[in-house]
Every structure is written in structure tokens, then in C-alpha cells.
């Protein structure tokens, strides 16, 4: 079974999805990610789905729930590099990924996470 690697870059966890997501892969990723956020105390999670060409409602829901889980563990999630076809599919499925932050590419995603970090430090 595929296991998606989670890379740590400073305070950010980087997940790059490069295979078609099976339901089991998605569930494992969710588990791993929750564990990693808790363990490393990361403040940001970036999920790069630029290589993902096929999504179903399950993967869409997984993105939402990962974002929810991360928020509870006080980390911001940003989904980057979504393909047009994937965006259209998700919209047609009625999934708008409420509460999930998005960015065009990894660079902008990093900026967004940086900003979120600054905002939260101001809030404290």
C-alpha cells in the first residue's frame, strides 16, 4: 500500500501527493499527519496536489477534515496547486472545501503560512 511521505521544513509539514489517492491512502495520510503535527508542534501544513488529476468526494472530504484536525492542533493548512479540472470536479460534486486555505503554488502557500504565523503571534 502507498504511504505518502510527510516532510518537515522548519515549522511547516509538507505533503506532496503524487499518486492517485485510494481511500485507504487518504485515511493513512490523515492519521500520519495528525500524529506528526502533535509530535513536531508544527504551525503549518502544506498539501501540494499539483500532480493530482483525479479526485472523488472522499478525497475532497479528507482535505476538509485534515484542515479541521490541523486547526484543532493549532496549525494552519494550505492546499496548493490544484489543477483546473480538479477544481471543477470538486465544485460539481458540491464540495467547496469550506475552511481550507488555498494557494496557486508552493511559493505562495509558504507566504500564506508565514502571514498566518505572524497573525497568530500578534494575537497571542
Amino acid at each position, binding site marked *: 500500500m502507498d504511504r505518502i511521505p510527510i516532510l518537515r521544513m522548519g515549522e511547516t509539514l509538507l505533503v506532496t501527493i503524487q499518486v492517485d489517492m485510494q481511500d485507504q491512502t487518504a485515511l493513512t495520510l490523515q492519521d500520519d499527519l495528525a500524529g506528526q503535527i502533535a509530535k513536531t508542534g508544527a504551525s503549518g501544513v502544506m498539501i501540494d496536489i499539483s500532480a493530482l488529476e483525479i479526485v472523488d468526494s472522499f478525497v475532497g472530504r479528507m482535505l476538509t477534515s485534515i484542515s479541521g484536525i490541523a486547526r484543532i492542533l493549532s496549525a494552519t493548512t494550505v492546499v496548493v496547486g490544484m489543477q483546473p479540472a480538479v477544481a*471543477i470536479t*470538486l465544485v460539481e460534486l458540491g464540495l*467547496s472545501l469550506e475552511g481550507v486555505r488555498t494557494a*496557486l503554488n508552493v511559493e505562495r502557500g509558504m507566504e500564506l503560512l508565514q502571514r498566518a504565523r505572524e497573525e497568530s503571534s500578534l494575537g497571542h
Partner: protein
Amino acid sequence: MKNDYAPLLGALRDEEEPIIDEWMAELPGADVGARRAARAEASELLRKLRESLQAGADPEGFESADWASVRDTLSGLSRSRAAQGQTAEATSLFVLALKKPLFASLQRRLAAQPEALGPALWSLSTTVDRLAQHTVSTFQQVREDIIRRQQEELLELSTPVVKLWEGVLAVPMIGVLDSSRTQMVMEALLQRIVETGSGLAIIDITGVPTVDTLVAQHLLKTVTAIRLMGADCIISGIRPQIAQTIVHLGIDLQGVSTKATLADALSLALQKTGWRITRDK
């Protein structure tokens, strides 16, 4: 059954030239070139008809393979006439005009045996009617093809995605928004966002005549898709009446930036992307 077609076949074989002459005389006046073209078509059609009848084709089963060559000839005829802008009426009249000379010919041939005349005329009538029917249906099909192609061209023409500024794209929507239009605009816009890496898209609906719940739903879908890609969206060109309609219909545009004009949207976009414009004087 076969016997009913024997006199018709005989007429086609022996009197081809006189029949064509009479046929052409039946047609309303046209210039010399058109007449010559019509004559060539007529003789081609008669030849194909004769061959098919000779091969034992049955006009009752006009859709069968026996009639393929006749059908092709007729299709070609209708197609060229549709392209020339002739009416369906004129095209079917051209084929139906064949009836009279063949009628006369059969009458002459079967003058001695009136009991055979009835079935022979009936078979002739069926055949020519089938030919005419086929012409009209092909004609219609060709017209529909033309209309469909024009619709597609119009669809492509009406959805340009333009770059307004570094990182700012705009789509001026013109005409009624339906699902296929929205789909097309959405795809084109998302594709351009990926290509240019633009963080902001402005959808201008100045040219959209009315906004109802369906149109609003289409717009919201586009906005959601843009957001999912990681870009932002502003809807501009909302006229006062349309703003009223949106509120009366109870459409929720919360979370979507809206501006009255494209200029306002652009200045908001520049502000969001961190540009500041100053004027010298």
C-alpha cells in the same frame, strides 16, 4: 411487387433524355449555369435510380443498403443546395418535379393495359416521394449542422480571458449565462490562472442581461472553483437593477467581492496585490 417497377425501369432505360428534358422544363426558370448544373444532377440521379431498381432494390425499404448510392447522390444534392442558401422547398420541388415526366411516360407505355397502370403509378409515386423525403431530411440535417457549428463559434468568440495587470485576469461576460457557457468560461479562466500564475480574477457581468438564481449559481460555482485553485475573485459590472434582483431573489453573495464597475474592481485588485498608483499632476 417487382412487376410494378418493370414499366418504371423500362421508362428510365429507354427514355432517359426526353425525361430529363421534360423534368428540366418543369423547374422554374434559372440562369444557364444553374440549369446545366441541375441537368447534370438530374442525369446522375436517374442513372443511380435505374441501377438500384435494376439491382432489385425495393423502395419500401429505402433505408436499406440497396439504396445507398441513390441516398448518397441525394445527400450531396441537398448539401450543395443548403450551402448555396436555397430553401428546403425548392430542393424537394426539384426532386418532385420528376414525377410528371415519369407519369406521362408510364401512361404512354401502359396505354394498352390500363389494369397495370394503377400499380405502376403507385410504385412510381412511392419511389419519388421517398426520394423527396430523403432530400428534405438531409437538407434539414445540413442546416442544423451549420447552426450547431455557428453556435460553437459564437461560444468561443464570446469568452476571452484578458490580462489586465500583472497577476490580474479579467473575463468580460457577454450574453446569457447558461451551464455550457459557464463551464467554458470557467475552464478557460482556470487554465489561464494556472498558466499566468495570476492571483486575482475579475468576472465582469456588464454584458449579462439578467441575473436569476440559476445564473447566480453558475457564478458562485466559478468563484468557488477559483478559490479552490488558490486565487481570489471579484465580480464587477453589477448594474443597479441587477443588484436589486439579487437581493429580492435572496441570493447569497456573501464572501464574494462585488463592485459596480470594472474600474472599481481593478483598483481593488491593485490594492489587494499591493500596487499603488500615483498621479503626477
